[in-house]
Every structure is written in C-alpha cells, then in structure tokens.
C-alpha cells in the first residue's frame, strides 16, 4: 500500500468473504474483508467532496475507478458493492463496520455467490421510423389525411413499443433470480438519439443462457425496429440491498 504523508481516509469499495483472494487493499475482520484504498482527505474530505461531486470530470474518473475495482474483485470472488463515497477515518472503523453489519453482509454475499448482474437496454432503432415514412402527398386533402394518419400511427406505435418493452422485461425476469426495471437513461448520458424503452438489470445464475435468451428476444423484435444492448457481467450493484442506512 502506498505511503501517504497527508491526512488520509479509507475508501471502501465493497465487501468480500475472508480470506480474500486479492493481493492487496483488503482489511479482514472475521469472515469478511473490505476492499479499501487510502485516499487524501484534501480530496475526499467532507468539504472537498461536496465540490468534487458536482465536477463531472472528477466524478467520471472516480466512478469508473470504483467500478473497475469491483469488476476486478468480482472476477475472483463474490462481492457486495458499496455505494460510491463510503469513507472511514481509519482501518479500525472499517473493521467495526464489518462487525456491526456482519449478518447483512454475509447474507448479501451468499445471495450473489455464483451469480452476475446483466444489464439489458432496448432502443427504438431510427431505421424503423425511416421505413414508415410515407410517399409525398399530391393534394392538400391527401396531405391533411396523411398528417392525421401519422398522428394516430405515432400514438399506436408508442403504445405498442411500451408493450414490447414490458413484455421483454417480463420474459427476461422469468429467467432471472431477480430483476429490476430502472428508469431509461436520458439521451444526454447515452449519446444516442433514439429513445431507450427498456433499462433492466437482471441477477442471473447462467450468463450465457441469459444472453441466449436476450438474443432470441432481440431476433423476435428486430422486425419492429427494436435494438437490444446487453452489458455486463457487472458486480451485483442492483441486488445487494435497499439503500437503507443503519
């Protein structure tokens, strides 16, 4: 572990079972071990953090680092991810936390053992909108009829898309241990023009079988212009608790 001269805190990324198969950055207490990293309080102290959290570049760098550490740990052993920004003054406090939350953490580790989180997003591909574009109208009446028809068509299309997304989620839920439908991500974060209609997270025993199910689902939806994207495997962020502090 690197030597740190200035005031230091301990950032906790997640919790694994002890003994942990990780070479460094582990603080063990009983059956559990925390994945930790010393951080400068000049950067991660109370006041500093408030500003940093609203600095998009800083946030991206450190959110990715948090993810990278958990992803690496995940490859070696079951991990319970902690939310971003869990920091302790010293390692004794980390051990005390492992003692006081032991039952909950052990149960969470047991629950995610041998399982992975897979993300599935579905988008309305732009090609489907192009394909529906009608020929240019010749008369004014034809134009108005076409406008009205287009509006009705758009409403029907929206309802149909929502139904497709819901059905897709239900089908994937059926082959998951647990599933969550999250709010679709905004375009400013995704960088894609087309709208997202499904943003699901699925805790699964068999990632390959689940991916095959998504592929079958996607093949069935391709004609309707729905584009699926699978992400992961992720550390089981979506499946380790309800976010209630002790």
């Amino acid at each position, binding site marked *: 572990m690197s030597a740190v001269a200035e005031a230091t805190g301990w950032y906790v990324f997640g919790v694994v079972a002890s003994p942990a198969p990780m070479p460094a950055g582990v603080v063990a207490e009983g059956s559990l071990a925390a994945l930790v990293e010393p951080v400068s309080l000049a950067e991660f102290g109370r006041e500093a953090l408030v500003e940093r959290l609203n600095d998009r570049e800083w946030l991206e760098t450190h959110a990715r680092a948090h993810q990278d550490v958990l992803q690496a740990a995940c490859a070696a052993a079951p991990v319970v991810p902690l939310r971003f920004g869990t920091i302790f003054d010293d390692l004794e406090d980390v051990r005390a936390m492992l003692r006081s939350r032991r039952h909950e953490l052990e149960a969470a580790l047991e629950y995610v053992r041998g399982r992975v989180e897979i993300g599935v997003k579905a988008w309305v591909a732009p090609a489907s909108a192009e394909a529906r574009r009608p020929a240019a109208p010749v008369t004014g009446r034809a134009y108005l009829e076409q406008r009205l028809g287009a509006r009705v068509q758009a409403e029907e299309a929206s309802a149909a898309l929502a139904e497709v997304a819901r059905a897709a989620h239900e089908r994937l839920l059926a082959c998951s241990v647990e599933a969550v439908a999250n709010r679709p991500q905004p375009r400013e974060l995704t960088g894609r023009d087309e709208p997202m209609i499904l943003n699901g997270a699925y805790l699964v025993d068999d990632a390959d079988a689940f991916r095959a199910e998504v592929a079958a689902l996607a093949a069935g939806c391709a004609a309707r212009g729905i584009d699926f994207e699978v992400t992961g495997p992720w550390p089981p962020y979506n499946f380790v*608790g309800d976010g209630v502090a002790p």
Partner: protein
Amino acid sequence: MSSSGFGGARSLAERSGGPAPAQLADVLERVLDKGIVIAGDIQINLLDIELLTIRLRLLVASADKAREMGIDWWEGDPFLSRGRNGKGLEDRLRRLESAAGLESEDGE
C-alpha cells in the same frame, strides 16, 4: 489533481485486464444510485449527491424522448421492479425537488 485518489485501486483493476470500459451512463447509474449504503465516518450527505443528480436531471429532462412518447411503463408498477430497490433515485429526487421549491420539468 483529479487523479490523486484511487491510485492503487486503478492498478489493481488494470492487473485483472477485463472487458472494454463500460458506458458512463451505466457506470454512474450503478455506482451513484445502487450498491449497499453503509454510513462511513465521512458522510457523503445524500443532499450533496442529489444536487448533482438534480442538475443532471434538469439538464436532461426536457429532452427525455421516451417520456414525451408516453413510454413510461417502468414507473409505478412494483411488479416490474421485483428488486428491493423500492426507494429509488426518483422518489428521493421528487422529495428534494419539492423541498427545494424546484418544479420537475417533465410534468410529474
């Protein structure tokens, strides 16, 4: 000096190799809003992080095409969120926004 923290963590991650970097939206969504919450010595006041998400939301809400199209089936259906994440970002945002006198821009 935004790279001063997590130095060792980064190298730990690099040693493992792994897949291509995930999309930022996927990472932020999970890292900021999911994962188990444990009270550390240095608290990130939830308000701090929610100020950030309110900013993101105010930035993006007006262009939220899916909602414009009326595709909002994921909301208000507890069956579909079979997880235990009942109190999500949305609820917390709504409470904070009303406390702060901010109107939600997408008409909720």
